[in-house]
């Protein structure tokens, strides 16, 4: 087993390599290989893998890229991530990418897909319309059509015909990936001091820019490591972080939350890698139907999924309960419609349920957190003060 510090620093390097060196190296090893960039939140990476491609997550430039051209594309009242993505595209960070996928999460990313089309970036641009109808024979069929479009685009580039065997093999690899991730989350729930959120974040995010096989190896090593009695417990409260599923806060902010007295035991920062709960059937003769089925019936709550029959406030409350968390930190990217529009739903419900929370906004490029740190510190202190008074958490309406 490699030294955990080496693994973590390699993951940090990978997670924030804005030139995607590993992905490009991988592609250069074989002429039929393609790189497909996808934006947050979720995309069924299995299908790209099965088509001989490497799905690579694009999370913008964070606090590591100075925006020069992107600001000219977006008004001041639009979140930061699209301008950093455009800036990266114009500065050729995505050279050698074959296609780009924009999952349907908000109007900003949707319209960014049109700008990519207009600019002619990549060999294909696909706005991936995830179904908001949850009947397998209606929304599920439409979702399969959407996946077939993507496969068609890739086949036009590399000629690879995706068979059920190939798809099932890929599904199996991603099942393993999700299982390992959840295993580590479960350990961190009980022993969050064994692996800091900052390090865990780097490890998770690295998995979105390298082949899944390599990430699985890393996760296996990390899982071994966290099984051991490592690290030292500190007097911190446990929180769930919610609302930062697209534009990512800088790592400094994550560290500040931890430094201010909170263990983050669950979060939606890298929601895409964990969107499906449990395994997808890897033995089906119709693997696309299996993926669609899993999306419809096994998805986590998300601001991008219409929650008509499954209200998100109760789902988040359930996570808080299951993770034995003391409260919730709502962190929304500034001007992020999906996150901010959900805020009153969560907060009004949590007021009724007696779940403690705080809310703040961030921007990916800001790395001054004095105010947030004070706010989080006061929050964790207040929880410690009231820790004898458990809040009741109803998990059903």
């Amino acid at each position, binding site marked *: 087993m490699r030294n955990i510090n080496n693994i973590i620093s390699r993951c940090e390097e990978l997670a924030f390599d804005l030139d995607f060196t590993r992905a490009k190296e991988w592609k250069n090893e074989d002429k039929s290989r393609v790189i497909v960039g996808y934006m947050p939140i979720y995309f069924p990476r299995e299908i790209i893998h099965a088509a001989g491609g490497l799905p690579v997550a694009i999370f913008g430039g964070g606090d590591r890229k100075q925006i020069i051209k992107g600001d000219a594309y977006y008004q001041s009242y639009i979140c930061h991530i699209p301008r950093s993505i455009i800036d990266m595209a114009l500065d050729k960070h995505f050279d050698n990418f074959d296609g780009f996928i924009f999952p349907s*999460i908000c109007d900003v990313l*949707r319209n960014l897909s049109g700008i990519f089309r207009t600019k002619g970036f990549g060999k294909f641009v696909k706005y991936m319309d995830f179904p908001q109808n949850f009947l397998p024979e209606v929304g599920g069929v439409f979702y399969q059509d959407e996946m077939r479009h993507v496969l068609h685009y890739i086949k036009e580039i590399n000629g690879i015909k995706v068979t059920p065997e190939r798809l099932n093999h890929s599904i199996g690899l991603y099942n393993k990936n999700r299982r390992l991730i959840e295993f580590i989350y479960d350990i961190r729930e009980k022993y969050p001091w064994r692996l800091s959120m900052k390090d865990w974040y780097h490890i998770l995010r690295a998995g979105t820019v390298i082949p899944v096989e390599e990430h699985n190896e890393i996760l296996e090593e990390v899982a071994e490591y966290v099984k051991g009695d490592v690290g030292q417990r500190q007097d911190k409260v446990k929180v769930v972080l919610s609302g930062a599923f697209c534009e990512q806060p800088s790592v400094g902010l994550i560290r500040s939350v931890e430094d201010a007295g909170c263990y983050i035991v669950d979060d939606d920062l890298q929601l895409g890698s964990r969107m499906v709960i449990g395994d997808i059937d890897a033995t089906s003769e119709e693997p696309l139907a299996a993926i669609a089925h899993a999306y419809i019936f096994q998805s986590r709550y998300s601001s991008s999924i219409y929650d008509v029959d499954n209200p998100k406030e109760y789902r988040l409350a359930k996570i808080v309960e299951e993770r034995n968390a003391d409260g919730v930190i709502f962190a929304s990217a500034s001007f992020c419609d999906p996150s901010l529009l959900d805020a009153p739903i969560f907060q009004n419900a949590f007021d009724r349920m007696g779940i403690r929370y705080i809310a703040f906004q961030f921007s990916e490029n800001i790395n001054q957190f004095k105010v947030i740190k004070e706010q989080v510190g006061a929050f964790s202190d207040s929880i410690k003060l009231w820790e004898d008074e458990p809040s009741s958490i109803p998990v059903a309406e």
Partner: protein
Amino acid sequence: MATIEVIKERSMILQKEMIEGLFNDLEKAHETGKKVCYTFVPGNLSELIRCFDMLPVYPEINALQSAMRKKSAAYIKEAERHAHSEDVCTYVKCDVGMLMKGNIGPTGQKLPPPDILLLSYTGCFTFMKWFETLKREYPNAKVVMIHTPYQEGGKMTPEMVNYMVKQMHEEVIPKMEEVSGIKYDENKLKKILQYSKEAEDWITKIFETPKHRPSPIDAYFAGVYYIGPINIGFRGTPEAVEYYKELYNEIQERIRLGLGPVTPEGEMKEEKFRLVVEGPPNWTSFREFWKIFYDMGAVIVASSYTKVGGVYDLGWRHDPEKPLQSLAEYCMNCYTNLNIPQRIDLLTKCIKEYGADGYVTNSIKSCNSFSAGQLAMMREIEDKLEIPVGFIESDLVDPRYFSYSNIKNRLESYFQMLSQRKMMEAEETH
């Protein structure tokens, strides 16, 4: 919709009657037993609502009407007191605030609660969030969502149409039957759609009249009144057909007499600039906003906003022979459901065909569906057509984001630039 007060043409009276009638029916819905359906303008299924004898309520229309009546600021504040962010669509907050303060509609009459929330999820992600919020406020209402796929590839594919038609069969129609107690009657729908088609023919002709010089209408500031009936539930009615026919005849008469558009201060005397405008208007200072334009002799000959409730310019119509399919296509064909290249093409076509001198973007803080990408579109259009472009920022119904002096200054410099350019062009041709 409000009416222009200066000269009351017959068409205005017809429109007023239609709208007053709707609000009166809504007020009496409880007594008459009519079911009430809350829904949105883009992708509205008014024909289907009518087919089930329901009455529509459009939350965006209530919000914009509240703004025109200077009530939106208080509503927005109320919503913000309940954890609604300062930075999200103000239509949502205005609506939620109005609800919290007793749901008194724009005409001063109380609006009935919905029996059904019909979310036609077309062209705007916020709609979904808005209805998630409303669903929690009205736990007894039946909720039905129809997901309209985005025209990401610049076209409507058979898969997209099938998906929508299946949703109608499996979800929308059964739930509407259940709530209304009325069976779906395709023949009835076909008859309604025939009127829709006719109304669409007339409104298309109306919005083509600005091709004349001088333009007989302002296709943005007056245009928002013209789209009222077709967008708020009257599309499949003989009344709408009559209204649009009448309006068309009145405009023809203006053309015959060589008259320019009617403004709140009377007729615009000299047409100096012809503009195409992208983006919704500001509603809180609608009159002042409009005045900046007509005082400068600027007339809007085409606008994207008047296409939010349906794009008819390119020939698409409801088709009574394919009732559900055409409802599906209608939803997919609203302006904000078009992809950015399609929007650029449509605006380019307008600029060329209507002989516009300039292209102005009114960027609305509330509305990412419109605003995200507008700068790139503007640059593309500027490069392609070498047309002078103008850019202003405001908001829909939040008066805090309408800065009269900023907008006026910007527009004045823009008009100055247009003047100079016109002079230079005139010199070159001599």
